[in-house]
């Protein structure tokens, strides 16, 4: 039996008395998978568990056959699972270039001693890192000045920068939390083109959390639907779209929106 690239089994997470996730299974081998669901369905919580920010109460997560539970977020990143955030979390006062350079942290093999001594090794490494960072910025389509401070970038560029920063760690699996939020349909389309190209060129696997249904239907190979912390549907986009439970969840969600957020 070959192991899948990424595999989650029976993930359960409770906050106090509230069960945010209940027995969620998720498997991904290649391509783009999307996770959708109404607000409060547990999507971001699932990401947080995948990337080590939360510890799951039950269940297991494995990447390339290695269990991830119990690892710190930075260790998981070092293994090749990287993410972006729903509300952009750039290092606002650092430049675009520096943001990307931080993303490479896990891949830098220098010791403090190399830094202090400014050994040739250090110079070579820094030069190489910088070249790669510039290339990455261009790759995600950031055409502005790499030395611009992140907080001064336009919104769309901040989203792109966040992706570049995540790519800097050299992931095999990239988790994007609402990458098109706040974008126009045109920008979103452009971004999707980029994502598809990344998958094709780098052999990346992608997991998206997305609300923009057009995007989801267009790029996803598979869609997983969460509602109330439970997986209610999974499959190719067309199938999921037709699933009565999904339709009910989304229609019902309109009423639920007004309820106070419970999971805090």
């Amino acid at each position: 039996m070959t192991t899948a690239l990424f595999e989650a089994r029976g993930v359960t997470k409770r906050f106090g008395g509230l069960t945010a996730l209940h027995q969620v299974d998720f498997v991904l081998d290649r391509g783009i998978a999307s996770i959708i669901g109404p607000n409060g369905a547990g999507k971001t919580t699932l990401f947080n568990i995948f990337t080590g920010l939360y510890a799951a109460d039950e269940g297991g997560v494995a990447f390339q056959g290695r269990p991830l539970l119990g690892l710190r977020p930075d260790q998981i990143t070092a293994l090749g699972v990287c993410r972006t955030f729903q509300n952009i979390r750039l290092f606002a006062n650092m430049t675009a270039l520096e943001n990307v350079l931080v993303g490479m942290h896990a891949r830098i093999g220098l010791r403090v001693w190399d830094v202090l001594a400014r050994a040739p090794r250090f110079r070579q490494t820094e030069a190489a890192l910088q070249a790669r960072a510039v290339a990455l910025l261009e790759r995600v389509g950031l055409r502005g000045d790499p030395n611009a401070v992140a907080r001064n970038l336009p919104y769309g560029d901040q989203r792109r920068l966040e992706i570049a920063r995540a790519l800097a760690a050299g992931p095999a699996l990239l988790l994007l939390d609402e990458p098109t939020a706040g974008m126009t349909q045109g920008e979103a389309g452009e971004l999707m083109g980029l994502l598809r190209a990344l998958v094709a060129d780098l052999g990346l696997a992608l997991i998206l959390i997305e609300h923009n249904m057009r995007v989801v239907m267009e790029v996803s190979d598979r869609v997983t639907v969460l509602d109330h912390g439970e997986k209610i549907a999974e499959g190719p986009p067309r199938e999921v779209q037709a699933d009565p439970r999904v339709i009910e969840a989304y229609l019902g969600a309109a009423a639920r929106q007004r309820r106070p957020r419970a999971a805090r």
Partner: protein
Amino acid sequence: MDLPLLIGIFPQVLLDGLILGFMYALIALGYTMVYGVLEFINFAHSEIFIVGAFVGVEILLGLKGAGWLESLPWPLVLLLLLVAAMAVSGLLAAAVERVAYRPLRSAPRLIPLISAIGVSFFLQDLIRLVESVWRNAFNLVYPTLDGLNHRFELTETLDVSVKSLVVIVAALAMLWVLHMLVNRTKIGTAVRAVAEDQAAASLVGIDVNRIISLTFLIGGAMGGAAGVLFGVQYGLINPYSGFIPGLKAFTAAVLGGIGNIPGAMVGGIVLGLLEAFAASYLGLLTGGAFGAEYKDIFAFSVLILILVFRPKGLLGEIVRERA
């Protein structure tokens, strides 16, 4: 080791610790109220507190100078001191918030904290400056109120003075009033709403700035009252004598669960008892190798241990993304 002695002083140490604990509890209220609403450590609260003590001593010295101190009944004098100190400290706390914290409310959380540390130091020397010009002295002695100093000998080894009872009664009364205020009144509801979610509170028509000012006012007033009681109980104050009690009161607030009013009382009493027992017994138990000089280390260790091992909202709060 002298066992009968150790047992003999036990009730007295217990009582001393309780009194100290109530004092800490009163000061802790100021920290806990502000933290509950803004998640902000009002570092300057220790000076708000000692300002209350200075207001008290100035009134007493004024009354003494005018020759009225002996003729007035002590409960009246004490009430006057408490009211005046609460007013001054409360207003000062609200003013500090307005000037030094409000402009920074949206900044990263360390920024207002640093500002608060600055206010704390600034106020210490401001008190010193004012008293130096006014009295040419800043170590001030509380004139004795004879009625307050009366002692009841309960047993041979246990006695209690009126002023100690006053501390306990006043602390309990104020805790009760505050508890009622926060939980049973409209203002209290508004305070709790702001604590829960400022944006939402303002949406339902609550003037958030006013409520925050009010929070500082109430917390400061509690501190001012504590200041008067501190002065009456221990006698000598200077501009710097608020700092260490303030830090310990903060410890008490954290110990009891910061943001939680009954918690402040529990924390204060536990800390007061711990400190009293450490100071009284450490020397006796170790034959003098360690002694009362280590009592501050006990308090600070409690602070460190509590913060390290009960890290409230460590990750859950920072990662407050929608689940």
